[in-house]
């Protein structure tokens, strides 16, 4: 059996397929990159937990053959924090969408970053609420249209990785569904990083975002994402004018800091054998 088929059989719940995602959606590409990253990171299947929130991308949990926890809207990181503190030996991956993570889950996101707890957040950013049919999120670029912003949104969008960095996350990377190999590599590095790792995956939503904003079909959208992505190494040599409208991809930051669950268990060691 080819390696990829073996991977599909082991790590995907093939009986639950086909998935619910629309044609041209990037969620499948991101999910596949995750599955490959699990394999490459070398973790035991039984030690991997997938936690997800509410939204299109969060449905990935149901298709992945691990212990999977599909939670409430915005709260995935808090469920994951409880689980990780109870069972620090587990590798916990948290899949969220842009609205799930940065709007309703914004508070949990910054505090998870502040604690630097060893969770791996993968945020599928398609700039829109897809499941409910195309409302603007905090990651919808200014001016873009949505069902709740028919004239274009006036709001400014977050830079998710800078938000996380400011709040204390120790690993931040950005990949795209148009460059799945790089995304996979970033996921492996994030998985191995001790501390809160944030991986933003830019992904096309042709149905609820692309159509309304005349961005073309899936192929055009993927090409657009690819063309707008600038590797972090190159971006350092570019001016802010040149970077306008671009997305810096790659490993944006990674540094060591005390990890919360490890620190907690070290702190309570003094009570052992008492």
């Amino acid at each position: 059996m080819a390696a990829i088929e073996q991977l599909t059989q082991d790590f995907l719940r093939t009986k639950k397929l086909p998935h619910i995602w629309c044609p041209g959606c990037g969620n499948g590409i991101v999910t596949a990159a995750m599955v490959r990253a699990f394999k490459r990171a070398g973790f035991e299947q039984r030690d991997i937990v997938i936690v997800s929130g509410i939204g299109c991308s969060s449905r990935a949990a149901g298709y992945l053959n691990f212990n999977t926890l599909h939670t409430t809207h915005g709260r995935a990181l808090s469920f994951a924090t409880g689980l990780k503190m109870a069972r620090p030996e587990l590798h916990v991956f948290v899949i969220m969408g842009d609205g799930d993570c940065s709007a309703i889950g914004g508070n949990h996101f910054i505090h998870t970053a502040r604690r630097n707890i060893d969770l791996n957040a993968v945020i599928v950013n398609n700039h829109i609420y897809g499941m409910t049919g195309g409302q603007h999120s905090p990651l919808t670029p200014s001016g873009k249209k949505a069902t709740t912003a028919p004239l274009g949104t006036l709001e400014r969008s977050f830079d998710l990785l800078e938000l996380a960095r400011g709040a204390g996350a120790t690993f931040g990377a950005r990949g795209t569904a148009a460059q799945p190999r790089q995304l996979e590599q970033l996921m492996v590095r994030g998985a191995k990083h001790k501390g809160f790792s944030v991986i933003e995956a830019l992904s096309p939503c042709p149905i609820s975002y692309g159509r309304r904003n005349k961005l073309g079909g899936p192929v055009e959208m993927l090409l657009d994402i690819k063309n707008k992505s600038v590797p972090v190494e190159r971006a350092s040599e570019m001016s802010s004018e040149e970077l306008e409208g671009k997305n810096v991809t790659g490993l944006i930051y990674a540094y060591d800091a005390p990890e919360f669950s490890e620190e907690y268990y070290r702190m309570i060691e003094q009570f052992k054998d008492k």
Partner: protein
Amino acid sequence: MPEKKPVLMQGNEACAEGAISAGVRFYAGYPITPSTEVAEHMARRLPELGGVFIQMEDEIAGMAAIIGASIGGKRAITATSGPGFSLKQENIGYAIMAEIPCVIVNVQRMGPSTGVPTAPSQGDVMQARWGTHGDHPIIAFSPASVYETYYLTIAAVNLSQKLRQPVIMLLDEVIGHMREKVLIPDTGKLMVEKSSDNVPADWKPYDEKGLTPLVPFGFGHYYHVTGLFHDQYGFPSGDPEVVKRALDRLHDKLEKYRDEIVLTNYVGHKEPRVAFVTYGCSVRSARAVVKKAYWQNRWPVGLLSLQTVWPFPGREVEALARQADVIIVPELNRGQLVREVERYSRGQAEVVPVNRYDGEMITPDQLMEVLGRWLP
């Protein structure tokens, strides 16, 4: 029962200690008056027991974190008061749907909204029943003393584990902050057996045949947990048959184990003419009246105290209504549980509410005056 030692304890502390005795080793929550002592006690005690205490960023996260910990195999509890209880409702519903054991303590204070944070109230009785959306079952205990708080918390933890159902401890500010004697068993071990000890080979996380233990994550059973309606394996389904069966199963679970869930206590005359039905701190005032009216004066008076408020002890109230002419229902609200009492009395007894909602207790004198309408 092992030897017991008397300890002077505050209600909130007794709640925390009861949880610990029942094997709780995880607390996540957010500070709020008048429940904060539960958190503070847990913050001191859990680390020395190898457990986890974590103060979360908000009430919602506290509720989410105990569910996460419970799925990881830890017995988990959180504590809050009215405003926080409102925020926790979303994830309480999740725990009901996904059948994750956990205990939620609500030390009731005067509401609505921020209300009077330090004043007692029994205003959250209906919120405990219907606070989260959807047609769900719920278990709620309401202790009337510090001693009862200790033992009901133990019962709450164990029932929650056995039934895989969230249990609400509905304290009130009086019970939470009062200090009383509690008899603590020496061993401090009052846990039922670990739920995951005997896992059958054909284990399904949501077995339609009946109760099935929760196998924690990380032991090689790759099941799915979701707040969506789901099949026996946990996978989402919108099939009307699956949906109906799943909701019925959640309710049947409580009906089947009703005798273990519904706890009441009757004191007083065997054939009462007038009976009190109440719960929580209001039991104390009613008991003082029964003491005087029945034990001293031998009037035909009795008191049915409800340790369990949900599911409502309908059969017990119905039986009482057949016996008594009048049922008096004191509550620190504008009349919430009295409607259930009326419903189950089925017109066989006159049901008289006594309500107070100015942030003060109902006094025995106040109840004695009401009783005077019929007796002596």
